[in-house]
């Protein structure tokens, strides 16, 4: 069908009916709905968040007139609503009434609203974004909503609600004791509920990146069906002038605060007797105590901190001049990221917020701090005092917290010494330029011993090992990575490739060195390589260094660090977290002083023809392992099988310090026989810019035959020892395991395991044909669901040409992304282009543009290794990934003809 025919058909279709007069229906509808002006007045803040917040304030201020915004039944049986919010999304569930007759359809609907800065958001989810579940409050019936697995894209325009009326969905099995009830209930499409009290829940679950990075919002209300129930005294608001005086402090539970570590509930200890109840609230980043909408009968309390601050105890007491409210954390796990929390207290008598003195843990209005070891500090087992530098977490116009530091509080345990400081904040807060720290000496109660030193201000993850030769953990890690890279460059001169690592704080020396950046760049002493998610902003940034300092409209503070010969630029990214707060994260980008000579990573040259090398078994059994070497690196091969399980699913190491020998091991499921395996080695890859890709690629291809495995159900090691013609550190070799058209990787930490596969229906494609490759990710372990946090993209795809130079390495733009997995449920994702594409000729901008011109992946003839990496931190943090992270990479080799 050509364009003209298509236009004609669509014109016919569009003219198939007369235009109806929609004005009466629209007029009727808008007569009953708020006008834009009214909405604006309710929303002094920009965006719908303000609207939601304002509505919430309004209904709490007028509890007998408006809908009950806490989701509880309205005392009058009138409207009831509840709102929940996550990031830029709000879910609002409303019911026209909280009281229905038994056979009456319930008038419940839910709205999902996006109110972010972008004009719209495209999310992936079920065909219907919102589902409804019901739970019998006065019984045991419960039905969760059901969604299809369509991963349908939905586009939400900013501020435009997606409204779903209540509908029945869910599932039950025949052996469900309530199967009869559910069968009858589902058979009637009319949305009725049986007599009783029901919690009606709206659930919206969608992915922010296709169907990944799933976000789930849930809001519920309670409705009564049938005869009006007798209300409990707690729901009835007492007359303000008859406030009871309790004999003892009253302890009131607040609704749970959603936290990634689970739901925790703040509690109110009311010594005044004026707190009627504690309600959920959305933090708006205001003062610690406010009267929403000026309503003195409601106090909104806000506080922030790590997750251990969510379960706070809120103690309200009278003072000579008004009230005091102390917010004290009651324990729980701490993470680095700050979050904001809020509750509302419905009061029996008016309390002006200005009369409430808010304190934190008995201390007035203290902000959190973090610290690091002073540059000269080298803790040892005998250390009884530590020199630290304390930094303020809040913005303080770049001022040092010196003179404002409070603390420390030092907690001792067998494993750790935890040191916590606070800082008295500057009045009125301030902007956020980097601020110097304040030197503090901490005296310990005894020698440090082998205990870790933990910064209590940023959580248990901020760990520094105590040992005689320790520098700060991060500095040592930088040096370690740098030495690995330099060792790898046997034939090169002063040469580095990409060094990327993460942390969120600079050292003092780095701060001081920052001023040198312009001079160094102007002098042409180095060059800069950018990695980043390929979007317009990064492409333009890569083309013009100057542009990146203001990308996204935000100023970019930069600093450099120069350990040894390296010059590394650090980019500080503001990192928004819940509650509208921001922390700063650093992405590091490498620059090189002097000329780059990374073109000869080994002293070998690939042979014209690949070499087939025999791998006999040392015990004289028939050889089951073969290797083809395209690199010219391997001179000898010996196969082995060991009863012990290898540490990794597949691994390559040097034998001791001998870099002229490699040992490759992989896991097999039997020890009485090995498994036929074919190895193939490609490289060395002479990259000027490696994109983080290795110098060699080693494929371990399973070729099982019947009867060759499985004689004992015991995990064992099979492997080869390779003798090399030149020294190559094992880190330079990417080893990957395949079986047919599947590539497999496994990561394990304690009882957690992550299985990653990459697969394609075919391993041969025609040139220009879209390459269709998918990844599969499965978590197994003790948790029913797990959230792996890491720097995006996660999972990350890439490829590397084995017989040429084209490649695409995944890069990150250092946003902390969550990968949500359900135990034993495979997450399947198609290959996605992202990262940095390097053509053989790096200056060939046309090739780069052609590559990114379409989302489908098409490649010229060649042999390619495709890979996917997935994983992240198990503890919900993007800081300090190593100790608790789990991840795996899987690769396959594909031929494009």
């Amino acid at each position: 069908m050509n364009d003209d025919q298509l236009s004609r058909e669509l014109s016919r279709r569009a003219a198939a009916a007369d235009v109806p007069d929609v004005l009466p229906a629209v007029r009727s509808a808008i007569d009953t709905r708020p006008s834009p002006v009214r909405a604006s007045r309710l929303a002094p803040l920009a965006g719908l968040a303000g609207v939601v917040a304002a509505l919430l304030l309004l209904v709490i201020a007028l509890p007998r007139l408006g809908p009950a915004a806490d989701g509880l039944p309205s005392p009058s049986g009138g409207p009831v609503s509840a709102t929940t919010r996550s990031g830029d999304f709000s879910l609002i569930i409303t019911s026209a009434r909280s009281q229905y007759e038994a056979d009456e359809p319930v008038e419940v609907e839910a709205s999902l609203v996006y109110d972010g800065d972008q004009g719209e958001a495209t999310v992936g989810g079920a065909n219907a974004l919102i589902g409804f579940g019901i739970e019998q409050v006065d019984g045991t019936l419960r039905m969760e909503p059901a969604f299809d697995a369509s991963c349908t894209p939905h586009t939400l325009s900013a501020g435009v609600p997606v409204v779903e009326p209540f509908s029945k969905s869910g599932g039950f099995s025949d052996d469900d004791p309530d199967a009869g009830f559910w069968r009858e209930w589902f058979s009637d499409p009319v949305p009725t509920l049986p007599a009783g009290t029901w919690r009606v829940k709206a659930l919206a679950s969608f992915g922010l990146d296709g169907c990944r990075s799933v976000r789930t919002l849930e809001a519920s209300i309670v409705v009564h069906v049938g005869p009006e129930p007798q209300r409990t005294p707690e729901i009835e608001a007492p007359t303000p002038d008859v406030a009871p005086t309790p004999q003892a402090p009253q302890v009131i539970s607040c609704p749970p605060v959603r936290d990634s570590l689970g739901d925790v509930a703040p509690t109110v200890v009311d010594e005044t007797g004026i707190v009627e109840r504690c309600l959920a609230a959305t933090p708006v980043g205001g003062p610690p105590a406010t009267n929403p909408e000026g309503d003195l009968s409601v106090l909104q309390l806000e506080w922030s901190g790590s997750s251990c601050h969510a379960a706070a105890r809120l103690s309200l007491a009278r003072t000579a001049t008004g009230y005091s409210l102390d917010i004290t954390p009651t324990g729980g796990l701490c993470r680095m990221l700050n979050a904001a929390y809020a509750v509302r207290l419905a009061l029996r008598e008016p309390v002006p917020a200005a009369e409430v003195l808010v304190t934190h843990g008995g201390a007035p209005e203290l902000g959190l701090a973090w610290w690091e070891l002073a540059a000269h500090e080298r803790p040892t087992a005998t250390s009884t005092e530590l020199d630290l530098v304390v930094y303020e977490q809040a913005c303080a116009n770049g001022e040092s917290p010196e003179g404002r530091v409070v603390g420390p509080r030092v907690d001792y345990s067998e494993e750790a010494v935890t040191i916590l400081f606070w800082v008295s904040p500057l009045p009125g807060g301030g902007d956020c330029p980097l601020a110097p720290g304040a030197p503090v000496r901490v005296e310990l109660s005894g020698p440090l011993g082998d205990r870790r030193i933990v910064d209590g201000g940023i959580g248990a993850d901020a760990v520094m090992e105590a040992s005689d030769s320790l520098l700060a953990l991060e500095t040592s890690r930088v040096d370690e990575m740098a030495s690995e890279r330099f060792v790898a460059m046997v034939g090169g001169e002063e040469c580095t490739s990409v060094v990327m690592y993460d942390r969120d704080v600079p050292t003092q020396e780095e701060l001081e060195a920052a001023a040198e950046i312009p001079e160094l760049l102007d002098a042409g002493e180095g060059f800069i390589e950018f990695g980043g998610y390929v979007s317009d902003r990064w492409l333009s940034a890569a083309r013009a260094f100057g542009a990146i300092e203001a990308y996204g409209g935000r100023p970019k503070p930069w600093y450099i660090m120069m350990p040894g010969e390296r010059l590394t630029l650090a980019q500080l990214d503001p990192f928004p977290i819940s509650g509208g707060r921001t922390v700063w994260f650093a992405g590091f980008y490498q620059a090189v002083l002097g000329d780059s000579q990374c073109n000869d990573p080994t002293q070998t040259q690939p042979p014209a023809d690949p070499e087939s090398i025999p791998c006999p078994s040392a015990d004289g059994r028939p050889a089951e392992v073969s290797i083809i070497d395209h690199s010219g690196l391997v001179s000898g091969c010996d196969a082995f099988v060991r009863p012990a399980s290898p540490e990794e699913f597949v691994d390559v190491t040097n034998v001791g310090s001998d870099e002229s020998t490699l040992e490759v091991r992989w896991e097999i499921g039997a020890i009485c026989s090995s498994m036929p395996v074919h190895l193939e080695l490609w490289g060395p890859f002479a990259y000027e810019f490696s994109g983080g890709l290795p110098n060699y690629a080693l494929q371990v291809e399973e070729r099982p035959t019947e009867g060759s495995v499985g004689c004992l159900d015991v995990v064992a090691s099979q492997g080869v020892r390779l003798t090399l013609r030149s020294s190559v550190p094992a880190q330079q070799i990417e080893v990957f395991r395949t079986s047919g058209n599947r590539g497999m990787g496994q990561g394990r930490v304690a009882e957690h395991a992550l299985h990653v596969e990459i697969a394609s229906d075919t391993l041969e494609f025609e040139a220009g044909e879209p390459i269709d490759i998918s990844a599969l990710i499965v978590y197994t372990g003790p948790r029913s669901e797990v959230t792996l946090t890491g720097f995006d993209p996660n999972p990350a795809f890439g490829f590397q040409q084995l017989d040429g130079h084209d490649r695409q390495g995944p890069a990150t733009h250092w946003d902390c992304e969550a990968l949500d997995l359900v135990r034993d449920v495979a997450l399947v994702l198609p290959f996605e282009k992202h990262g940095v594409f390097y053509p053989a000729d790096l200056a060939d901008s046309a090739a780069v543009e052609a590559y990114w011109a379409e989302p489908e992946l098409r490649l010229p003839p060649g042999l390619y290794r495709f890979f996917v990496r997935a994983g992240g931190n198990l503890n919900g943090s993007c800081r300090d990934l190593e100790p608790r992270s789990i991840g795996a990479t899987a690769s396959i080799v594909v031929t494009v003809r």
Partner: protein
Amino acid sequence: MDRELLVRARAGDREAFELIVVAKGEPLYRTALAILGNEADARDATQEAFIGAWRSLGRLRDVERFDAWLGRILINECRMALRHRRRVREVALSDAPDSPDSAGPPPATDSTDFDDAFNRLSVDQRAILVLHHLHGYGVREIAAWLGIPSGTVKWRLSRARKALAAELSDS
């Protein structure tokens, strides 16, 4: 669209908004009808788009972009209409065997092979074809309507055409 009218409507002037409904009613309905292929659904989507626009007009920062903004609301409503219809049909026909057409709309009055094929496309695919081939919008205008980058428009347009061709060949 008259800017003053839009400003007045945004300020809460109901009469001004009704004039907008009168002026925009036909093109919006024609667009919805072309996308949905069903008179009742197109009418409902048009009505709901106007109602949604009235409810959200206070948050429209740039009245110059009203047309694209209203268009996006309409396409959202078309998505909703199709989903609701799909769900209703699934409930009503829960005992019937699934068929490829079970999720599709009831046939339009002058149903043709083209309609059958077109109705099997996603709403987004239908929308992009309607905007380009019925209204003659260019890539930039479609990008504004759908709120997606121009490059994505080109790609989606190409995919939608391929999908339609495939559906036509199947039928």
